[in-house]
């Protein structure tokens, strides 16, 4: 079944929002207004938004360090993100996490520092859903580089063994930091590893939002119905460098050129315009609106208060008097 026009517009809007936030972040850095480094997901928006689009609010999302895509997709608002990014006490985590976003209300646990440490934590949240007989699904969204981390293996093994409601969503953007994936693993695809545990998998184009959405929807349905884990691999390309301070020089220009032709936002816009789902004027208005929304979120967050010395020593233990 094709996605409804409203749904596609919503996904398109979210992709624009993600790109706008990340471009704003880069701009603030360039202007020297903030120091917070960024890992941008430019070019991957159809993955992060397509993967989170089909999730329910009660579903649990583990996201990655690469930009704000999946967090926007799951429903975080730009002001909350910025207050946290800027280390303000109004942030989601009172500024204690900054880039490591967490949102209890949205069932987003926490963006881990040691990549891959959350493979098994995600299996744990899925185990909780199963034992508590809720029908939540855990979606574990992960870069393909992090699929080489050791715990990927026991995590998949236990998820399959216990038939847990979890989707392993692998974002293959061709890089792990400053090297191509061919230096990290011998195969081109990651998802077939899931077959070793009897986990079904699919490999899909990561540039087309309808494709990513539907593949994920199918995987989530599988997991929610009690059939156990499912793995989807999305093929995309990281158009940004690894992080805002990356000197670059290791990306083949022909790769950039080729993938630029399939920018997910361009592809989606073209389709929306061609199918007359939106007009060019509406499109322009949307961009302007989003730009203003993001600018306002940033300015509001910038003027928020810093955490206090009291904040510094709370939230370590629940039990009083331990620290």
């Amino acid at each position, binding site marked *: 079944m094709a996605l409804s026009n409203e749904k596609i517009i919503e996904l398109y809007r979210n992709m624009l929002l993600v790109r706008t936030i990340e471009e704003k972040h880069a701009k603030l850095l360039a202007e020297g207004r903030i120091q917070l480094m960024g890992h941008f997901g430019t070019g991957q928006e159809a993955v992060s938004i397509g993967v989170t689009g089909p999730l329910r609010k009660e579903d649990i999302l583990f996201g990655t360090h690469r930009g704000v895509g999946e967090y926007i997709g799951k429903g975080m608002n730009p002001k909350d993100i910025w207050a946290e990014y800027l280390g303000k006490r109004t942030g*989601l985590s009172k500024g204690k996490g900054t880039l490591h976003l967490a949102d209890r209300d949205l069932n987003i646990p926490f963006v881990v520092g040691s990549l891959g440490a959350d493979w098994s*934590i995600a299996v744990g949240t899925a185990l909780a859903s199963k034992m508590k007989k809720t029908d939540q699904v855990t979606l574990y969204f992960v870069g393909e580089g992090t699929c080489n981390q050791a715990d990927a293996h026991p995590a998949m093994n236990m998820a399959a063994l216990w038939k847990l409601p979890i989707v392993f969503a692998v974002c293959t953007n061709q890089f792990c930091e400053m090297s191509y994936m061919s230096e990290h693993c011998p195969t081109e695809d990651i998802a077939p590893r899931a077959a070793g545990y009897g986990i079904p998998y699919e490999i899909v184009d990561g540039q087309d939002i309808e494709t990513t959405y539907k593949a994920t929807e199918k995987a989530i349905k599988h997991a929610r119905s009690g059939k156990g884990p499912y793995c989807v691999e999305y093929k995309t390309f990281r158009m940004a460098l690894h992080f805002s301070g990356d000197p670059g020089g290791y990306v083949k220009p022909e790769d950039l050129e080729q993938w630029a032709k399939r920018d997910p936002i361009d592809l989606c816009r073209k389709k929306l315009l061609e199918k007359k789902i939106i007009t060019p004027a509406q499109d322009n208005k949307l961009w302007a609106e989003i730009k203003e929304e993001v600018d306002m979120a940033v300015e509001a967050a910038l003027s928020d208060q810093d955490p206090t010395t009291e904040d510094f020593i709370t939230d370590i233990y629940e039990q009083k008097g331990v620290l």
Partner: protein
Amino acid sequence: MGRTISYLQALNEAMAEEMRRDPSVFVMGEDVQMGAFGQTAGLVKEFGTERALNTPICENAITGVAMGAAMFGLRPVLEIMFCDFIMLAMDEICNQLGQWRYVSGGQYSIPITIRTAIGGGIRMGYGHSQSLESQLIQAPGLILVEPSTPYDAKGLLKSAIRSNDPVIVFEHKKLILGGVSGEVPEEEYIVPFGEAAIRKEGKDATVVAFGFMQYEALSAASELANEGIDVEVIDPRTIVPLDKKTIFNSVEKTGRLITVEEGRIRGGIGAEIAALAVSEYFDLLDAPVQRVAAPMVPIAGSPALEDMYMPNKDSIIRAVKRTL
């Protein structure tokens, strides 16, 4: 009215009672249905295979699984079979488990209990004999518990399971296997964290001994008593939080401090207590602090070598005498 039960039984009862009391409590780990040393034996009968969950061998990952489950409404009691294997799970324990409450700004509690068997002296050699409590004292956000009696084993483990903070319980193999017995009340009780027990009063020197070393310290104390040396023996019961008050009230009286642990000396718990003595309680000491602990040596399998490694009654006696 009390009953006399073994240390092993105490641990088992604590888990069974808490599982009865709260359906979100469950045990998990490698072969917990059989029970590696019997701590979890029988739970599967009453609570089924889901609440006594056998796992594959992958210590870092099962720690993560327990952590994730704890963040979303369950109260896992995870067994890491040997404390040596805690080292496989250090990232989960120190970087994640102990820190996510803070770095999420208090959004998440992680009510997880990790139980693990420590200690040597039973000829298991390298890899299965270490006492690594001091490897965890540097990590923020954890509570560390080391019961030496059946009463404390039961009461502290129950506190651990009910706590919303992550708690690690160190169970010495000699206490589990050796059948230390002791009285516990018929009725429900818990032992709170951070309260040391004075096992023997004395006025000449303060011996602070953890876990199994408590028994070596008490033997040393009675042998010293024959020589007219009156030692006070303190069992801190929890390493974090540490009951500094009870320890240093005693040192104020005796002027002498001997710390005893089975783990290695450098950067050990004894180092921390000695450092507290010389920084926060400077004027109390009349003699050098003595740290009785294992040397900076791996544990060999050879019985002869293992015996050279272990702190014991005799090394405690020598240490006490050096302070007099």
